[in-house]
């Protein structure tokens, strides 16, 4: 807190306390005193509300830096948005998250920018590129939490882990239960007799397709389609145009893309009938780019789009 110029804390009763601290010694002392007072009030409130179970026996996190857009969304969704004091440059949902200061990239993050936010919890995406940052944060005494976020099943798991960390278990549990129910009902929804065979193309040169290891494959499957590259264990894979032509999908799903991509005019792509006849389904929005609670809506939209093309 010594380096922050403006300190905002929210009391458990919902009173916002704003502390300005400048370079002068007196105001810094004021700030320290004020923050100490806030902390004391918070501690009293916490005791008054009864003990909160938390990981590692520590109190519920009050200042969370979220290092993946999906975690930021979940924290806001379980009502802990006011605890988020740092986010990545990519965290744009919900719109209120944009008011939180950005600490830059979430993968291989800038540790100094994170520590400057004075967090008591940093949530990292489970990636080897984040190992070093996690160790450095731990070495300066910041609690870290590393969560996987690659499949739809990770959404309820991460919601509950985050809920426990910030003391919002009730909201997290109900979100997780709602999401799991939604997934189950999508899974058991009646499937078309002949599901459309689909390729999700994320890049054209080299062609990169979504494989069975991706949550986007799950979205597609739940929407009642068959991913022609669902047999690949990878989340995404580079393949030859010949392979796509040989698997001959009925439709090409373009994620967050142009409905009339320029590459579709290139002669080599005319070998794929679905490209030649422009049988494209274009979806936009970050719910198709990362696993979040909005995945259920994404599945419904994809199903509607696929149905409208099938007719």
């Amino acid at each position, binding site marked *: 807190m010594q380096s922050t110029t403006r300190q905002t804390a929210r009391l458990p009763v919902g009173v916002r306390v704003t502390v300005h601290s400048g370079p002068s010694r007196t105001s810094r002392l004021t700030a320290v005193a004020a923050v100490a007072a806030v902390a004391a009030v918070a501690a009293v409130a916490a005791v008054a509300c009864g003990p909160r179970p938390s990981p590692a026996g520590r109190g519920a996190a009050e200042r969370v830096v979220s290092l993946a857009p999906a975690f930021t969304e979940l924290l806001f969704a379980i009502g802990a948005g006011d605890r988020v004091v740092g986010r990545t*440059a990519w965290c744009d949902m919900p719109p209120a998250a944009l008011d939180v200061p950005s600490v830059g990239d979430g993968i291989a993050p800038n540790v100094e920018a994170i520590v400057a936010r004075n967090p008591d919890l940093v949530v990292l995406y489970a990636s080897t590129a984040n190992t070093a940052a996690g160790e450095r944060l731990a070495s300066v005494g910041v609690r870290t939490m590393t969560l996987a976020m690659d499949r739809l099943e990770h959404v309820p798991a991460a919601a509950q882990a985050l809920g426990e960390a910030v003391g919002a278990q009730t909201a997290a549990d109900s979100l997780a239960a709602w999401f799991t129910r939604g997934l189950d009902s999508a899974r058991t929804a009646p499937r078309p007799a002949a599901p459309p065979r689909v390729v999700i193309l*994320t*890049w*054209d*040169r*080299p*062609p*990169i397709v979504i494989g069975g290891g991706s949550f986007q494959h799950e979205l597609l499957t739940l929407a009642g389609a068959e991913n022609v*590259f669902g047999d*690949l264990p*990878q989340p995404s*894979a*580079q*393949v*030859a*145009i*010949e*392979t796509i*032509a*040989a*698997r*001959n999908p009925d439709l090409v799903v373009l994620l*967050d893309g142009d409905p009339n991509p*320029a*590459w*579709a*005019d*290139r*002669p*080599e792509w*005319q*070998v794929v*009938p679905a490209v030649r006849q422009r049988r494209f389904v274009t979806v936009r929005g970050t719910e198709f780019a990362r696993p979040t609670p909005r995945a259920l809506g994404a599945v419904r939209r994809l199903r509607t789009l696929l149905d409208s093309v099938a007719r």
Partner: protein
Amino acid sequence: MKRWPVLLGLAVLALAAGVAVGPADLSLHQVARALGGNGDTATLAIVRDLRLPRTLLAFLVGGSLAVTGAVLQALVRNPLADPYLLGLSGGAGLGAVAAIALGVVGSWGVPLAAAAGALAAIVLVYRLAVVADAVLDTRVLLLAGVVVGSFAAALVGAILALSPAEGLRSALLWLLGGFDGASWTALGIFAVYATVPLALLVRESRMLDLLSLGEEPARFLGADVEPLKRRLYLAASLLTAAAVAVSGIIGFVGLVIPHAVRVLWGARHGSLLPSAFLLGGSLLAAADAVARTAFAPLSLPVGVVTAIVGVPVFAVLVRRWAT
């Protein structure tokens, strides 16, 4: 080893392999029938519109890169010279990434932007290396190429770090090189374009022999060294820029094939250049077939295959040459 039968045999084998194998499960019989115009639409399209132009383009690009590498090695008299050394890969990368960041449209936008970036690098390197009295100093050329390439690569890094465009990271995959953009159109354009610099380079074979003795001896033996160097540099670079446009950056071929040919059959450019063309073309066509097929349905970047197959062979050759 008899040179021409071996090289022509390899070329035929590599071209045949490129058309015969691929991730689509087609029998040799089906492929042969498709080449004759018989079979279902999908098979015909795969064999005639994908495999055939792709294999021919890989062969032509491989041959062009090998010839360019041989010429540049003689020009700068440095065994480490390769077609991309003189700033071309950096310039091409900057062109491609800038085009994607700026949202350049059109199905040929990115390849043309890459070629334009390579051309810009060529002009800049050339301007830096031409010192007093229009003398192309090959030592400065080498250094200018390296620094211009590094500068362009740094700009690419900055654009990638700062731009929110998600496709940008995938743009780098394009630069890793490959023949996913191959078509009869691309093949036709490249073949017509490449003929001019290739013919020019082969025509200068005797002058290259002189030049590889050193600039002073070449001058004493009657070579008009300065215009020669400029012609060689521009023809080699323009050829490489076109290769970048159709296939990105494919390393190893241009560096190693010329050395392999010199080790096997000697350094006279009159036969070195055609030999390098055949061997480089064979290697790249075969490597592309392996890249498409070895881990099908997954594809490997073709540069990975050329290095994995080529480095051990080259190491053996160099050992034989040294002893």
